[in-house]
């Protein structure tokens, strides 16, 4: 099956739209059984959201695979403990599948807690744990009593759904710690930063902005996370939610239980970063803060503008496709790319909702194709049809882009440079330029004059 012959799956046609055409949106659907979906599962969602809590023990209760595939695959940096980067698993074997894994889980937890002395422990349930009937909650309680630390079950069997349902379970688990610590010393100008995972050190950059403005960051959840920060995060005045897909649920819990309002923010690109900072200071309504924010934003933009212009000149008119996990990231990317003079011609997410897609449609240009829960064939089809210069996506999309001879930028968890904030925009521009302008694409078949004119003389090909 080659890309030129690809047709969109019939059942999927309502999950693909083109801006400018009046179509009904369908999303938030379960992936078709038998499809090559790019989506993962609930366990994956829980695991990636909680794992940056660096001084906690994270143990996967199940057969070995779930722990192996998730082992240190995201560059969520910690400034202190590195415990989260190990892979712990009960490595369930046949015996436990028959007789239950409770004993093994308890023994594992006791051993690990004694050895590593973590601040808390998270226990992730995988698909078969529910089926074999382990009472994980009870084991956690009992181990918690014996060891004196919080041992928290994360209800994340893979079959529960997509990553989204895993995010929810992760939020529930994290929330169990909230409210158990002292809020002494927390300023009235204080925030929690939710859905910031400190990939490549991004949380540190954003934290610095707030500190310069005079706003205390009580906790980043969960990037460079600490158990004690979570315990006292209910003392913050305002919650900022960055990765909305993963953390809105926790923000809602904090609102319901502690009356802390939350705002959706994004620190990707000049525009969104500035807007997010202004939104925050506006909330506190202190002219001092506003002044400092203005100053910071002006200074930062001035610092990077000249170099950004250089990249804009180089990238003007290039066409981009993006396929990312959550919708909010897609919004930011469309704007940031526009800032670089680039046009988004294909935008898609794994888990967007109807409102998300309406908003995405609003900010996209006419003719942009929008896809929900896509697959390699579809993505390849549109990349070629739209003659894309750059693909932005994650690990599964990278080799597809390269196979097609299209530049690629990782805006997912495997990215290696911080893309947040003002400085991050420069990094982003550099990454985009590094790939888009690479001399390699002149050799890629679809661009190559060499390949087109390259034919072997018959005399040679016969010998």
């Amino acid at each position, binding site marked *: 099956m080659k890309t030129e012959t690809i047709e969109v799956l019939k059942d999927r046609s309502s999950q693909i739209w083109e801006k400018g055409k009046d179509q009904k949106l369908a999303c938030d659907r379960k992936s078709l059984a038998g499809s090559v979906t790019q989506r993962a*599962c609930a366990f994956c969602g829980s695991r990636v959201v909680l794992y940056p809590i660096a001084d906690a023990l994270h143990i996967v209760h199940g057969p070995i695979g779930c722990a192996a595939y998730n082992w240190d695959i995201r560059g969520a940096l910690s400034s202190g403990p590195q415990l989260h980067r190990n892979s712990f*698993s009960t490595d369930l074997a046949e015996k436990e599948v028959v007789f239950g894994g409770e004993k093994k889980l308890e023994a594992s937890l006791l051993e*690990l807690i004694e050895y590593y002395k973590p601040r808390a422990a998270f226990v992730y349930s995988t698909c078969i744990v529910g089926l074999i009937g382990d009472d994980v909650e009870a084991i956690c309680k009992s181990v918690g009593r014996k060891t004196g630390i919080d041992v928290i079950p994360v209800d994340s069997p893979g079959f529960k759904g997509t990553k989204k349902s895993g995010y929810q379970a992760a939020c529930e688990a994290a929330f169990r710690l909230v409210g158990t610590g002292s809020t002494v010393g927390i300023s009235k100008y204080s925030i929690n930063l939710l859905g910031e995972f400190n990939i490549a050190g991004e949380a540190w950059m954003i934290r610095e902005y707030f500190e310069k403005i005079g706003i205390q960051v009580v906790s980043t959840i969960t990037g460079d996370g600490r158990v004690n920060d979570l315990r006292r995060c209910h003392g913050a005045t305002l919650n900022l939610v960055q990765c909305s897909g993963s953390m809105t649920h926790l923000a809602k819990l904090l609102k319901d239980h502690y009356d802390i309002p939350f705002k959706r923010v994004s620190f990707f690109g000049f525009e969104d970063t500035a807007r997010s900072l202004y939104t925050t200071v506006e909330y506190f309504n202190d002219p001092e803060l506003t002044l400092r924010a203005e100053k910071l934003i002006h200074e930062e933009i001035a610092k990077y503008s000249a170099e950004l212009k250089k990249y804009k000149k180089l990238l003007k008119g290039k066409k981009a496709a993006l396929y990312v996990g959550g919708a909010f990231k897609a919004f930011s990317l469309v704007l940031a790319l526009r800032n670089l003079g680039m046009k988004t011609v294909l935008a898609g997410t794994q888990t967007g909702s109807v409102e998300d897609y309406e908003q995405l449609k609003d900010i996209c240009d006419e003719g942009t194709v929008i896809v929900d829960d896509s697959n390699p064939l579809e993505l390849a089809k549109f990349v070629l049809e739209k003659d894309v210069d750059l693909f932005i996506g994650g*690990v*599964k999309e990278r080799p597809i882009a390269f*196979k097609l001879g299209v530049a690629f930028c990782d805006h997912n968890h495997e990215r290696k440079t911080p893309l947040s904030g003002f400085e991050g925009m420069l990094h982003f521009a550099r990454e985009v330029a590094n790939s888009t302008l690479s001399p390699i694409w002149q050799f890629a078949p679809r661009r190559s004059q060499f390949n087109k004119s390259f034919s072997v003389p018959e005399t040679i090909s016969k010998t």
Partner: protein
Amino acid sequence: MLDGTTAEIRERKALRVNPAKTCQPIGAMYASLGIRGCMPHSHGSQGCCAYHRSHLTRHYKEPVVATTSSFTEGASVFGGLANLQTSLDNIFSIYDPEMVAVHTTCLSEVIGDDIPMIIKKATDGGKVPEGKVVIHANTPSFQGSHVTGYANMVTAFVNYMAESSGETKNTVNIFPGWVDPSDMREIKRLAEWIGIDFILAPDTSDVLDTPQTGEYMMYPDAGTTIDELKAMGDSFLTIGLGPLSVTDAAEKLEKKCKVPGKVMDLPIGLKATDAFVDALRLAAEKEVPEDLKKERGRLIDMISDMSQYTYDKKVALFGDPDHVVAMTQFVVDLGMIPAIAITGTPGKAFERRIKEICKDVNPDVEARAFSDIHFLHQWIKNHPVDLLIGNTYGKFVAKEENLPFVRFGFPIMDRVGHRAFPLLGYTGAMRTLEKITDAFFDKRDREDPDHEVELIL
């Protein structure tokens, strides 16, 4: 990252810390990708499928396609029959493969889905188009390891596909263990060089190391064909490379179609490659070509050139059993001393083989199956070594203990060479030797005091 690891070794019964293995389904998926026009299908939650695809992609840097039954809460209660039937229906109508190779997951195993029955129902119900095939392997994640899953899928090729027409052909079956596409290519090169007709199953070369064509091919024009799988039953011999990975398949084929099987080590290093070449030569009833002898001679020459640097060096190895066993033999042949060799995969045979290989050079070798990298690290803290050989996950140990480190096996997620250059054969052995000595020399060049830096090594 591993600064929390202490030298004091704890006997752990209950848990796994930093595993040296992963689960069965990914091996089955990899084996299936080596069949032309085959769609691997993961019968379980969609996360499994996504994980395996991502993990394979990180190692091979290639798109990896597979479908999933997308289990939901309902399926986990009522069974996955409906999911698999819908899947087969969708897969054939949408992706149009020649074959669907179903593997199970822990979830569908615990539920107890009867896959052969479901396949039969689908076939009888006309859900499988004429001329297309559905096969399956049981790959419970809570038994064995990823290598077991690979083995089970290769066995499924035999069980479902091999036929004997009654007429024996002058063809040899070669079952490779779980090796990279570059290695599959090397196996074919050696067999072609010696001049023998063969069927390599599976064969992932040109599937997971495709050139940039500007097109996305869901099924690259490569891999073992269905006709070849059928014809395996008419071959006069099967050569299996890697006892854990392919013994079962070779035995099943012997039983089913009376094709005698010979299982040997993966041709990693000098002796194991000699054995493979010898087996091919005998089967072909031909002389070993002069140029191949020269290639072997160049390896021996390189080993002698470098022997002063390898001799007596202590090595720690970890990875998959077939790989580690063959590599242990090779480092012994290089004059090195295996100090510890571990695998995450269970099975006492591994420990026996390592001890046997090391009996003259190090009878006290620490050989452990069903172990993990945490244990390996603790052991090294107590018994310092000069070199670490293993997959990408070894890098933390190497960094912590400041060890020269040679990457080998699966997965390698932070280097690119394994995609292009084989580990197997004489050339593969030369490359391994180059990597070992490079690792030694790079460390020396970096760390020697200025007045001791050697220009000539």
